[in-house]
């Protein structure tokens, strides 16, 4: 059995237990998804404190409403939807913040499920000297800044597509838009991002 399949089975088992009333099982589900939901909210709010607050709230809401989760979608999709609505309703993404710092330790590792690109980034980080790492740090800071400058709608689709790796159909269902709308929104968002990054002197453009 593949790792993904095993994880899916484990998640399904925990979900069944949680729905039967086991809080401990739900805690394990939270452990499985905490990084993902927190990461999503951090990108959307640009504030570690807000992201944690909203992530906690997201999981609490999910826990209390577990009976309404019918299993028609993946569990994390359901969590995403709650998280996105929380981020939107909190209005915390409208104000640009400078709270997100990129610790050097995490520059080396992108998402664990990212495949080759992640491995490449990691390899580069390992091989690079301090100057290269510092340069990369600066570039990452610029990308984050440019991302924070986007409107919430635009940032949402960019994060869901480029960071979370969801397809247009899926994104549309999460943000309540048609596939065409997502396509158009993403096109505009990337255009804005490119312009901003160029303005900031982003090296790769």
């Amino acid at each position, binding site marked *: 059995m593949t790792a993904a399949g095993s994880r899916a089975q484990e998640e399904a*088992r925990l979900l069944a237990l949680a729905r039967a009333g086991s*809080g401990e099982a739900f805690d394990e589900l939270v452990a499985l998804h905490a990084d993902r939901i927190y990461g999503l909210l951090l990108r959307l709010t640009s504030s570690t404190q807000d992201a944690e607050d909203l992530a906690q709230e997201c999981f609490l809401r999910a826990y209390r409403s577990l009976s309404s989760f019918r299993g028609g979608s993946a569990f994390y999709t359901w969590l995403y939807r709650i998280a996105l609505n929380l981020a939107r309703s909190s209005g915390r993404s409208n104000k640009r913040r400078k709270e997100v710092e990129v610790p050097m330790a995490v520059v080396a590792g992108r998402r664990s499920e990212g495949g080759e690109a992640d491995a490449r980034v990691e390899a580069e980080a390992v091989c690079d000297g301090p100057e290269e790492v510092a340069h990369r740090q600066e570039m990452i800071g610029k990308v984050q800044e440019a991302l924070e400058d986007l409107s919430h709608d635009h940032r949402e689709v960019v994060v869901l597509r480029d960071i979370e790796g969801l397809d247009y159909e899926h994104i549309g269902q999460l943000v309540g838009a048609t596939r065409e709308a997502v396509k158009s929104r993403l096109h505009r968002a990337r255009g804005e991002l490119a312009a901003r990054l160029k303005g900031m002197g982003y090296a790769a453009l």
Partner: protein
Amino acid sequence: MLRCNDISGELDAYLDGELEEERAAGIASHLEDCPSCRRKLAERRSVALAVKRLPAVKAPDGFATRFRTARQAGPAAGNTVPVRRRRRLGWAIGSAAAAAAAVLMAAVFLPGDRAENLSVAGDRNRADGVPGARSRLPGKSGDRTDEELSEPQGCTSSKAAPSLHGGKKSGKAAPFPAGGKEPTLVSPPAAAEENVKEAASDRDTPVSRDSSAAPAKTYPEEAGSGLASKAKTPAPGIARKPSGYSGRGTRPVRGLTAKPRPAPGGRPVGGPGARARPRAVLEPRPPEAPESKAEEPGDAKPGEQNEGKLTRQRAYVLDVEVLRKAREPEKAGRAAKDLRGAKGGARRRLALRAESVAAVEDRLLEIARTLGGGRLGPEQADTALVKKKQRSKDAAAGARNIKSLSVQPPAPKVVRRAEKVAPAAAAAGGAGAAEPAKAETFAGKKSGRRLVLYLPADQAETFARALSLLIRTDVTEVKRFGTMGARAREAEVRKLVDGADELRAGATGPGSTAGKPGRKKETAHVLFVIELKERSEEQK
């Protein structure tokens, strides 16, 4: 042959593999002949890759633990306790009166700028009718509480690394469930399911992360946790309320001398027409809470039968976290919205259980401390009350207007004792006041326990609202509460508290001037006097 304008809007979709094969082939053909479009595509790819390469983020340390604590303070999954819709008149009056009193006192006695701030808060509350009793606020457009909880249909997992190359739509892999299929619910072992059903809502038991043991895990900690056996304070004859208990039948607050009074703005406060709807949310119980297990709430499922052994009852308390946020200016708006029971906050209305006098007292103290206040020891409190009573004679007319809200002064006997003991207690550094046992006697009645809390004046309104929403329990009766004294300067309160570290407001409270020599401005405090009393069997 496609032209550049035809494809410029589709380059991103092409890059993401979101185009039909035929269309993608057309664009690929165009790209072969068009260096300009190739540059645009490269730029888009570069942007997407830059975002994708942002470092992974991990949830902060302790996130899961904090979540578990919050979860355990609430009801079981899918078992949200219905919101209490109505509140008895007594409480409505009490909350309105206490909040109004705090605001008015502060407005009268505080320095100008702070008083103005509080007045603004008061105006806002008046606009709502009854402070803390607003039933619903217009939600933001994004407040789609119900909608967000309904899952999107047909969503399948598709979280995979973006190809960033033209690819087929259907070629996306899913991390889980495998192959993009939706997860199949695997039935837990029968024993596990049985155990879970029998389990009490949640125990604070660490869960092993050992995945190898996971498939057979049955959470034995939960099974047959024997809640009844954990209760050490039996209260025979107390029938538990069903989980849907609406809170009706709340006993009126005894001894509260407040009458429905028009608010300063002229609008009637409280009364039968007031839509009193308390804000009650979970209160994460800190692990270091001093109360014994028997008094600790949160172990029983709502609706669980008492069987004559439990004293677990319902009480509604404010979320300490919300109050904490209320101290941070940038979050104050959101916290205030929560406090008023706005749309989002309604879902956080949860019941807590198992309140004894000691537990309620502990909660009140915790909330006060969260807001930068603290507690006065019984001896010091008596002294403070006497001082404040004397001071109130010289107070401005505004203070006299709220006279009826003040608690009755302590019985003369107690006052005399306090006057005698106070110098000795002060000499001993207030150590004697820290004995909880001493607090159990009040005015010669052993069953009552009086709690005198001091709050920074700018938090008084919040605390008054918290008080009004706090207690509704069949175990404990709040005999009376009110504010005493118009204002206690920081220096005065500092003399009265049990230990220097008790006065947190002096160090961290908003507007504090501690550590700023040369400035005469001091934090003003409001004293809250709360008397808790076990209900008698007849009352129960």
